[in-house]
């Protein structure tokens, strides 16, 4: 299902990142983990290369908003920053989507508070 124009919108000035919204602007940690594990290194690197140089600007912008009342486009931007964290290890230390000797994401699952 392709996102419509509105569903992909990010705050003004972050239009260059809108191409990544459908794949990487995911609200839940488990979704982001699954996305990382099922992506190719090319896809991961492409996202990382675009997002890493923008993340400080994104966080500066979001720091100026009410974090408890983000608009949908602001939330999408925040989720992109979380996905950058998710792909940081693949790009920076593992050089592959996940460690070759780690449990897959369904085996170490984020859950509601214990």
């Amino acid at each position: 299902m392709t996102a419509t124009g509105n569903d992909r919108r990010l705050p003004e000035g972050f239009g260059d990142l809108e191409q990544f919204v459908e794949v990487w602007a995911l609200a839940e940690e488990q979704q982001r983990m699954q996305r990382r594990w099922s992506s190719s290194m090319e896809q991961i690197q492409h996202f990382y290369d675009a997002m890493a140089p923008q993340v400080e600007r994104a966080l500066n912008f979001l720091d100026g908003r009410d974090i408890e009342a983000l608009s949908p486009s602001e939330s999408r931007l925040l989720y992109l920053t979380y996905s950058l964290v998710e792909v940081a290890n693949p790009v920076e230390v593992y050089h592959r989507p996940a460690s070759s000797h780690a449990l897959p994401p369904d085996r170490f699952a984020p859950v509601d508070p214990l």
Partner: protein
Amino acid sequence: MSTEAPDADSYLSTKRWFARYPGLGAPGIPVEPFISDEHFHLERQRLWPNVWLMTGRAEHIPEPGDYFIKDIPPLNASLIVVRGRDRVVRGFHNVCPHRGSQLCWEKSGTRGSTTAFKCPYHGFTFDLEGILRFVPDEENFYGLEKQRMGLAAVATDTWEGFIFVNFSPKPAESLRAYIGEIGDGLAGYPFHEQNYQYSYRAVLNCNWKLLVSSFLEGFHVRALHAAGLRRFVSKDNPYSHLDFVKLLGKHRLISLYVNQAATPTTVADIAFSRYRKLITPVGGASGTAGASTPSGASALNKFLIRNIFPNLQLNLVMGGWYAYQFWPLAVDKVLWETRMCFSKPVNATQKFFQCYARYASRDNLMEDGKVTEHQQLALKSGVIKKLVLQDEEIAVQHFNKVVEDYTHPQGV
């Protein structure tokens, strides 16, 4: 004495620890406790009913009537932990004394609030102190002694806001005595302020003691976590010799060095430097992120692992704390619950930092989990009878020996 020999205490030395603890015997522990159904049964009989077990946090149940459900798998028990009208926290078996239905059917960890506990089966009703208050169709019961049909209680006590239970009818020690010295460095730590909790759940195909043991040494960091953590291992300490080990009765404390000179990765650098700008001490701030450990040790170059017997690991991290718990489900199956707790993030920088701290940790934990499953598969073959331990793995030996103190007291 050669002036070039390292100081006996220094991490440049070898064979520092076992000599200090002759009671542990020679290095090495048997395999049998990890694979034997009989040993698992002995643990169920002799260990789990006689220890204090952490179930949750006091601020999860702040008001009278608040409760949470907590399963205790090794004892086949489900507990209701509830704050009474007198504000005292009590633990009860989640069992109706009429015909044994569970009173609360929510899954472990669920929090709720109530004025009374009413059994869904026939309507027996208990108050917040566990006393039976209403018996439906009471006149049809023979010789009912209502005062003896309250909810079955377990000893319950709180330390630094952590709610513990003990299934022994007469616990051998109070909770504070049980915790002992390992609690000293944590007195006054703001756990209750850092109560924004992220949780993870894993069921692994390995004995619970194997998983506990994997966190009791730094020796594996260089190899197992080569990609994720080797940069934190300094060249002059390639096998992560410990800063110190403290064996404190039933509990253990180990201190790992973290290489200060490690070049931060790009995203880590962004996360940490933005976060540090927020926590530059101003004094009197909301007391949130960035509290250093009460002992004063820098959170940046040493990492303390606190292992509280039998199944709780408590680590302080920058701006927060992590707790891991390990619940045996079978001799070769464990439920691993991980909490990563911080102050509630109030802006995007804090959310981003907490995200980085969690995901970086989580990736390494997923490696720890996988290797223990391969250990269990290998040990089940029975081809090796003994685990060979080196000096820096002394905490592994100590933990497993404390288990034996319960399962085989005085070598029985």
